[in-house]
Structures are given as C-alpha cells and as structure tokens.
C-alpha cells in the first residue's frame, strides 16, 4: 500500500514538472542595445493590441519612435501593469512605459523620465445632454470605473455636488450606462475618454481636465541611466520635429476619423478573425491539457479516498476540501502571483492556469470518482477478495469498471465545466477567448457584439464537446 501511495505521489510530481515543458519559456534577449520594456496588457489609447494583434498606442508608438531616433532597439513585453512594475523592481526588465503617473511613492523605487503626457480627469455626458457643469449633477447618478483616478475624483466631490456614484468594472459598461441614460455623466481619464469618443462612443467631454497628472517612463532607481537619458533626448527631438504631435493626434484627434473597422458582426469577425482564432486555440489547448491532468489527478485522489488506509483517506479528503472549497478565481491569482512571491520563481501564466484548473477541477473529479466507487455494492469487493484477489486487482477488474459507468455522466459534466472555467484564467492574462474578447472590446468598444460572438463560440465548443462525450459514452455502453 505504501509503495502504491509513493508511486501516485511521484506521478503527481512528475505531472506538475511536465507541465513546465509544454510551453517553452521565452528565450532571453541579450543582443546589444536592445532594451526590454514592460507595459500593460491593455490600456487604450496608450497600449493595446490592434486588429493584427500588434501592440500599438501612444506609449508603444512613442517608445518605438524614440528608439529609432536614439538608435537602440526595444522588445515590448505586455506583462500587465502590476507585473510590469514588479518585473522592473526585480530587474527582469529594463524599463516600463504603461501610462504610469509620476508619484513620490514611485520615485522612491524608480527613476522617471520627463513627463511625456499630461492626463487629467474629465466629465463626459451623452451627446444630447444639457449638462455642462458639475453643479448640474445634484441628485443625479454618475458612473465611474473601479480603481481609476476618475472614480477617486468623483468620490471626493460627490458630497459637495450631491450626486450618487455607481461603479463599473470596465469602461465599456460605464459608457453604456451613460448613453442609455441610466447615469447622466461619467468621469474618466481625458486620453481614455478622447480615445473612446474617437472610437464611436456617443458621449462628449464637457469639463477641463482636473487632478492633472504626469505620465513618465520609468527605469529602476540608479540603473539604465543611458536609457533614461536617451528617452529624454528622444522625447525632446520628437516634440521638436512634430512626430510627438502626430502620434497623439493619431489616437486622440478630435476628428472622428471614419472608422476603418467594420462594425457589423461579419465585419467584426473578419477584422478580429486571427485574434479570435488564436484565442479559440488557446481555449481548446487549455481545456484539453487541463481535462487530462485534472482527470488523472482526480482519479488518483479519488482512489486514495477509498483505499483502506487512514492516511490516504485523510489526504484525499483534505485535498478535495481545500481545492473544491477555494474559488477558482482566488486559486488562479494565488498560484500566479502568490506562489512566485513566496518562492521567488516566476510561473508562466499558462502553467499557472493549468495547475489551477488541474487542482480545482481535479478536486471535483476526485469527489465523484470517490462517490462512484462507493456507489458500487460492497458485496462486489467482498466477493472478489474472498476469491483471493488482492485489493488492487479487485479494484481494477471488478469495482472500477462498474464505478466508471456510474461516473461517466459526471465526467462529461466536468469536462464542460472545465471548458467554461478556462474563461476565468483571463484574470492572469492568458490570451484565451475571453481575454481576447476583452482586448478587442478595449480597442473598439463594441461590447455587445463582441461578447455575442464570444458567447456563441463557447456554445459551439461546448456542443462539440458534448457530442464527443456522448459518442464515447455510447461506445462504452455498447
């Protein structure tokens, strides 16, 4: 029994190790005069993926233009804002340009360039609205996006002007609330708002920027001095030769340039086809790998739970208790951001995602594997043992074949849940379907249509998976 336990534990360890090899780590860049620059995953108009899935935006165009002007190369890493700041602090990257405000707190850790952009909070209202001043907001509802300077600003003045604040998780929903008239106004960073309007959001800006802040390019304190100097010189040159103006105009210009992107369903699919296809593949890949590992993990833990051994039973119950009891979202964030800060080793998002799903879905699998085996009449095991068959053989030849039959519907159910749960991994920046949708919407603000496309894609996938599972089930029962 102990040997069997050790073997299973060894197998789990091997599996986790194996996941690490599925996606080769990105090779380090060491060419001369190439700087690695971290940025946010999506923060339009400063950085976002365009319809060719290339990173563009004010920050991106600016850093590339400066690099060209100053004769160095950049490698852009869209790590996400917090991850980029942490990576800079730990010296894994050379600089960060991510619409980052220059604050005293940040100056303690980083050296900043001269301000390359001045931002501020503006109020926007529906195009046909008569509201132009803060004082007209009395008794009205105002929309903000959680965690933004706009939200802080609105909350700081709501008592004075007597309005109510409703909070949204993303810009698109916030804009929608104003255009539909539920809220009379919203507060947003001026470049973000300008870009939104340029993209066709039916709002207008009615106030001057308040709470002005400066955006700066950052390097780790005391390091990469020549990079910082080059940035400052390059920025001055760009401002002088008009290139800076061109870049900002491109993203913020008041003229609502005739939309280049088609906004019909077909048009959106055509425009974003390759991004959607990549997201689709990532979702399938995540689903398949997770299903395989979660099933193996679940069966092992489930079998441990029915083994006639107190220790293995306790281990199984504990694993199920912990990983079934923890929300998937929390588990994903814990493994992706929590574990590296404990161990000091970074985990690639894909691996963190697979581990998350393996543990969570595996715990559910273990629970129904255990239940399925326990549902087989005890007399079956007794009869097998009375013939002299050892425990393992009795399990394999008699109990499991009957238990699996009981478990099949639960397995199919769990596969479908796993597929859907991959969407939660968008929080750790995996470019699967949901995250792809978020990024596309961040660019074109076509929330309803893009989510419809994403939702239908999931339905198609789930239909295919259900057909496949039912086919396997029929084959098994034949």
């Amino acid at each position, binding site marked *: 029994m102990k040997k069997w336990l050790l073997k299973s534990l060894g197998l789990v360890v091997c599996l986790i190790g194996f996941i690490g090899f599925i996606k080769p780590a990105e090779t380090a860049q060491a060419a001369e005069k190439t700087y690695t620059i971290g940025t946010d995953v999506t923060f339009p108009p400063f950085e976002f993926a365009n319809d060719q899935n290339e990173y563009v935006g004010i920050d991106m165009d600016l850093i590339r233009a400066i690099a060209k002007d100053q004769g160095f190369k950049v490698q852009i890493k869209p790590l996400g804002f917090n991850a980029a700041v942490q990576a800079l602090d730990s010296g894994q990257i050379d600089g960060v340009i991510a619409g980052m405000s220059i604050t005293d707190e940040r100056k303690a850790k980083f050296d900043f360039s001269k301000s390359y952009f001045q931002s501020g909070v503006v109020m926007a209202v529906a195009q046909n609205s008569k509201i132009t001043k803060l004082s007209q907001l009395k008794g009205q509802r105002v929309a903000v996006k959680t965690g933004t300077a706009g939200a802080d600003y609105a909350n700081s003045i709501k008592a004075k002007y007597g309005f109510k604040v409703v909070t949204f998780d993303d810009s698109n929903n916030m804009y929608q609330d104003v255009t539909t008239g539920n809220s009379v106004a919203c507060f947003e960073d001026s470049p973000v708002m300008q870009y939104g309007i340029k993209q066709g959001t039916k709002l207008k800006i009615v106030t001057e920027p308040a709470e002005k802040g400066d955006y700066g390019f950052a390097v780790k304190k005391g390091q990469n001095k020549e990079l910082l100097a080059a940035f400052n010189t390059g920025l001055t040159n760009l401002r002088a030769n008009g290139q800076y103006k061109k870049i900002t105009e491109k993203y913020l210009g008041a003229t609502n340039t005739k939309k280049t992107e088609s906004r019909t369903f077909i048009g959106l699919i055509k425009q974003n086809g390759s991004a959607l296809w990549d997201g689709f593949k990532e979702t399938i890949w995540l689903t398949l790998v997770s299903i395989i590992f979660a099933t193996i993990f679940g069966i092992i833990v489930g079998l441990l739970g029915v083994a006639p051994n107190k220790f293995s039973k306790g281990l199984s119950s504990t694993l199920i208790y912990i990983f079934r009891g923890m929300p998937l979202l929390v588990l994903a964030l814990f493994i992706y951001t929590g574990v590296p800060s404990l161990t000091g080793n970074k985990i690639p998002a894909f691996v963190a995602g697979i581990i998350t799903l393996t543990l969570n879905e595996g715990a559910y699998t273990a629970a129904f594997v255990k239940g399925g085996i326990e549902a087989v009449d005890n007399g079956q095991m*007794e009869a097998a043992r009375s013939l002299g068959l050892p425990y393992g053989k009795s399990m394999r030849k008699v109990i499991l074949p009957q238990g699996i039959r009981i478990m099949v519907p639960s397995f199919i159910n769990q596969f479908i849940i796993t597929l859907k749960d991959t969407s939660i991994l968008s929080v750790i920046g995996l470019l699967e379907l949901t995250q792809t949708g978020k990024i596309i919407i961040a660019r074109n603000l076509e929330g309803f249509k893009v989510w419809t496309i994403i939702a239908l894609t999931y339905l198609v996938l789930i239909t295919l998976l259900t057909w496949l599972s039912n086919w396997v089930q029929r084959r098994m029962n034949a």
Partner: protein
Amino acid sequence: MSDLKIKVTDLKKSYGENHVLKGIDLNIGANEVVVIIGPSGSGKSTLLRCLNRLEEPTSGQIIVDNVDIGDPKADINRVRQDIGMVFQHFNLFNNLSVADNITLAPMELKGFNKAGAEAQAKKLLASVGLEDKFDAKVQSLSGGQKQRVAIARALAMKPDIMLFDEPTSALDPEMVGDVLEVMKDLAKEGMTMVVVTHEMGFAKEVADRVIFVDQGKILERGTPEEVFEHPKNERLQDFLNKVLNV
C-alpha cells in the same frame, strides 16, 4: 474425526460497545459439514466471515490449514484461494458475463489460460445444472441461477473449504431446492463446509454437526439428532419451537 482444517480459539469481535462474538471455540475437521443455526443478530454470519478474515477479529486465534490468519505476516490472499465463499446476495460481478465471473480468479491467480479456464467453467456450470448459461449476462439470471453460478465461481479456485452465508435466504421458495441440491452434492463429494442457514431440513439431512449460536456464544453443539431431537439448552428449545412449528 479426521485432520483439523479450522481451529478457532476464544474468538471475540466487537463494534465499539457492541460485542457480537464473546469467545468462540470451534474445531472443524476435513470433509466435515458444519451447520450454524441461531436467531438473527446472534453473530453467526460474523463468525463465518471471520474465518476468511472478511471481518477482522477483535481478539482470539483462527488457524486454517495450519496458517494463523490473524498473523500480519500471513498471506491472506493465498489463504483465501483455498476458502470458497457463497454470499446471501450472490455478489456476482455485475460487469462480467457468467463465464468471466467464473474464469476471472483462476486466470488472475492460478495461471490458467483462457481456454483452460473456460473449459473448467463449462464443467462447473454443468455440475450446477447451468451449462446453457455460459455466455449469459448476470442480469438475465434468476436468483437461484445466480447463486448456483456463485457456487461455481467459488469452486473454480478448487478450494478445500466452502463457507456458505445464508445462501438461500434471498431466494424465492421454488429456487431454494436447486441450490440445496448443489450443496448436498458438494457435501457428498467430501467438501469441508461451514454453512450458516435457516434451512433446518438441510441441516438435519446433510450436517455432520450442528452448532447453535446465540448472543455471541455457542450454546449447544452436537449431531443433528442431538440438537434437533434432544435440545438441552432452553434458548435452543425456544428457537427450534419458533422455526420448526411455523
């Protein structure tokens, strides 16, 4: 009495505060047929299940074929190969056909090849009157047929001891006879048998010895004639009154 097959010494079994067996001493010789009778809950099934360690005794010693089966070093799987067991609810393997039920253990444990195991299975099925059920699914059999297949399955390991745990209690009355016939044949062939049953007729006819168990103790033992015709113990008299005069 010939060689000793099973020797039980001061066997006790309790589940927490519930003392099911309170000190059982019992010797069973080769080729002997011992029938255990007693009211429900008296501990007779528990006693039987201790003999192949399906139940872990709380204390006491059980020696089967000179092996102390309570010894942690004893190879219980090996010992069980020589002790066939038949259950009240048959416990045929529901995932296997009749043939596979009978051939599984010999192929896994005794090195039989498929052809050999199947030939043996056919012979055994014929001996229990079910040669036509070789390919049948377990689910298609009647209770009596299932129990006869279960006996054939146990016999396929060529045991020298057979334990029967109320083998006819779950059967419709018209099925009981067929199963008892098979058991009588076995007894005639000289199989060592320990049978827990309520079939007093079978006990009278086939048993070499009858043991009366009540409240975890053996209260009376003797030949069928002694036990059924001249019961000494009051509780046994009581019990026989109830089961024989229905």
